[in-house]
C-alpha cells in the first residue's frame, strides 16, 4: 500500500538539464500544465469553492429566503457561539470521540487477527479473504438498513439470539443507553475489511526469513507475533489507524439511517448534527450547521496532516 500511496508524493526531481540553457525545459513544463489545467480548474470549482461557500455560510445569518436573494447579513462568529452554547455540543463531541476510538480499536484488532490468520495459506484462503470484502463494498444504506432490522427490538434476529442464551431483549435503536453501541457495532462490521486488507498486505511484505529465524530459535506463535509481526507491522499499522481516524470521523450514513442521531441526541455525532441542523428539519439552520461542519474539518485535517507527514517520513527512510 505504501508504494502506490507514496509514489505520487515524491515525483522525481527534474534532472533533464539541457546543455543549451533553461529554455528547452520550460516548454515541457508549460505543456505539463496544459494537462493539469482540467484538474486544477476542477479542484477550484468543485472543492475550493464549495469549501469557501461553507465558510461563508458559517459566518452569515442564512435563511431559506436569503439563500435565494443572497443578502444574508454578516454576523461574524455568532453561529459558532450558538453552536458552543448548544446543549447538544458536548454530547456530540464526546459521541464522535467514542464512536471513532471504539470503532477503530475493534476494527483494528479484529482486522489484525484475521490478517494473521489468513497469512497462513490454506485451502480456500484467497476466496474466503475476498468474501470478507463484502461489507466494505455494499452501499452504506444497504448495510445500515440491514442492521436496523437485525437490531429491531421485537422482531430482530439479534434479540432472538440473545434470548436463546437467556439474556434479556435490548432496545438497541430506541433506548438512549444502547443507540450509540448499536451504530458502533454496525460501523465496526463495515470497517473490518479495510483493516484486514491493508494489514494483510503489510504482513505479506515482512520477509519470510524473519519468521524462519524465530521458528529456529524456538519462539512460540505468540512470541513470534509479539516480537516479529507487531514491530515489523508498525508503519502499516500507523497508516491504517490514521486513515481510519480520518474516515471514521466522516461517517454519517450509518448513524443517520439507523438512528438519525437519536433517540434525543444519544447517538448524535458532529457529522449527523451538522446534517440535522442544515437539512434535518423544515426550518433549516444552515449557519450553525456549517459551523459544526467547519469544526469537523479542522479535526479531520489535523489527522490528515499527521498521516501525510508520517507517509513522507516513511518514504524518505
Amino acid at each position: 500500500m505504501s508504494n502506490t500511496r507514496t509514489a505520487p508524493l515524491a515525483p522525481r526531481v527534474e534532472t533533464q538539464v539541457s546543455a543549451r540553457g533553461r529554455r528547452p525545459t520550460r516548454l515541457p513544463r508549460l505543456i505539463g500544465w496544459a494537462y493539469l489545467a482540467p484538474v486544477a480548474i476542477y479542484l477550484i470549482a468543485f472543492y475550493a469553492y464549495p469549501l469557501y461557500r461553507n465558510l461563508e455560510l458559517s459566518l452569515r445569518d442564512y435563511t431559506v429566503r436569503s439563500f435565494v436573494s443572497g443578502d444574508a447579513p454578516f454576523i461574524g462568529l455568532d453561529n459558532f457561539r450558538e453552536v458552543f452554547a448548544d446543549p447538544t455540543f458536548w454530547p456530540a463531541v464526546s459521541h464522535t470521540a467514542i464512536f471513532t476510538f471504539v470503532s477503530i480499536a475493534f476494527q483494528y484488532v479484529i482486522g489484525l487477527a484475521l490478517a494473521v490468520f489468513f497469512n497462513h495459506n490454506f485451502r480456500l484462503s484467497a476466496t474466503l479473504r475476498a468474501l470478507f470484502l463484502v461489507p466494505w463494498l455494499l452501499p452504506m444504506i444497504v448495510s445500515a438498513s440491514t442492521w436496523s432490522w437485525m437490531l429491531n427490538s421485537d422482531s430482530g434476529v439479534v434479540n432472538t439470539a440473545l434470548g436463546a442464551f437467556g439474556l434479556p431483549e435490548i432496545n438497541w435503536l430506541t433506548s438512549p443507553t444502547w443507540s450509540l453501541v448499536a451504530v458502533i457495532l454496525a460501523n465496526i462490521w463495515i470497517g473490518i475489511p479495510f483493516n484486514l486488507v491493508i494489514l494483510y498486505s503489510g504482513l505479506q511484505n515482512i520477509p519470510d526469513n524473519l519468521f524462519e529465524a524465530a521458528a529456529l530459535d524456538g519462539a512460540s506463535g505468540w512470541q513470534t507475533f509479539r516480537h516479529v509481526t507487531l514491530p515489523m507491522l508498525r508503519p502499516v499499522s500507523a497508516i491504517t489507524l490514521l486513515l481510519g481516524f480520518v474516515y471514521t470521523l466522516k461517517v454519517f450514513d450509518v448513524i443517520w439511517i439507523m438512528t438519525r442521531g437519536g433517540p434525543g441526541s444519544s447517538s448524535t455525532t458532529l457529522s449527523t448534527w451538522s446534517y440535522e441542523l442544515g437539512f434535518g428539519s423544515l426550518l433549516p439552520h444552515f449557519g450553525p450547521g456549517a459551523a459544526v461542519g467547519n469544526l469537523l474539518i479542522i479535526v479531520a485535517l489535523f489527522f490528515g496532516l499527521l498521516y501525510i507527514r508520517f507517509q513522507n517520513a516513511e518514504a524518505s527512510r
Partner: protein
Amino acid sequence: MNTSRSTTKTVIGIVLTLLMLFPVYWMLNVSLMRSSDMRRDPPYLFPLHPTFSGYEAVLHDQLPYLATSLAIGIGTVVLTLAVSAPAAYSLAKLRPLGGKPLTFILLMAQMIPGIIMAMGFYSIFLNVGIINTWWGLVIADSTLAVPFGVLIFTAFMAGIPDELIQAAKLDGAGTWRTFTSIVLPVSRNPVVTVSLFAFLWAWSDFIFASTLNSGGTMQPITLGIYKYIGNNNQEWNSIMATAVVASVPAAFLLVVAQRYVAAGVTAGAVKD
C-alpha cells in the same frame, strides 16, 4: 505443513466467513419473507416459505431509481477519467512546476467530510439553479473519486518506462499523441480500477443525493431505499429486496473484477 492442520484452518476460515457474512444472508432471507411472517418472534432463520412479492415491489416501484443511479454512475466515471488521467500523465511524466503541492492538495481533499462538501454544493447549486438534477449529482459524486483517480493513475504511469515515451518522441509524436496512443493503452488496469470505484461510490452515495436531490424527479436508488424505510416501514421484505438489488454492482465487482478491488483498497481507497 501437514494437511490436517490446513484443513482445520479451512474449516475455521469458513466459519469466520459465515459469521461475517451473516448480515448479508439475513438481508436475502428477509427479502424472501412473507409480510405475515415479518413480525414473527422468533423469526424464521431460513426462507421456508419464500415469496417474491418483495422483488415484485422493486420492479413496480424502484426501476426509475435504478436507472437514475446507473446514469449517475456512468456520468461520474466519464467525468472522473476525463479529469484525472491527463493530470496523472502530467504529474508522472511531464514533471510540471507545482506538481508536488498539487499532489498534497489531492491527498488532503480526500479527507474532507462529505457533509461539508454537501452544504457548500447545496448553497452553490441553489444559486446556479441545478439543485434536484441528476447531473448535479454527477458533479458532486465525482469529487469522491477524482483525487483517488489522479493518485492511482500517477502511481501507475510513473512506472511506465521512460524509454517507451522517448521512443514515441523520436518518432515525432507530440505529448498528446504519446498520451493517447502510448500511455492510455498501457494504462488499462488503472482505468478499470478507477472506473469501478468511481461507479461504486456514485452508486452508493447517500449524503449528496439526500441534500442535493431531495426534491428531484430523477432520484438515485439510495433515496429509493431511504423513502421505502420512511414510508412503509412494515414492508421489510420490499426494503431488503431493494437492498439486494442495490448490492448487485458490489457483487459484480467481487466476482468479475476482484483483483482490481484489492488494488483499490490497498491504494488507500476508502468510501466515506
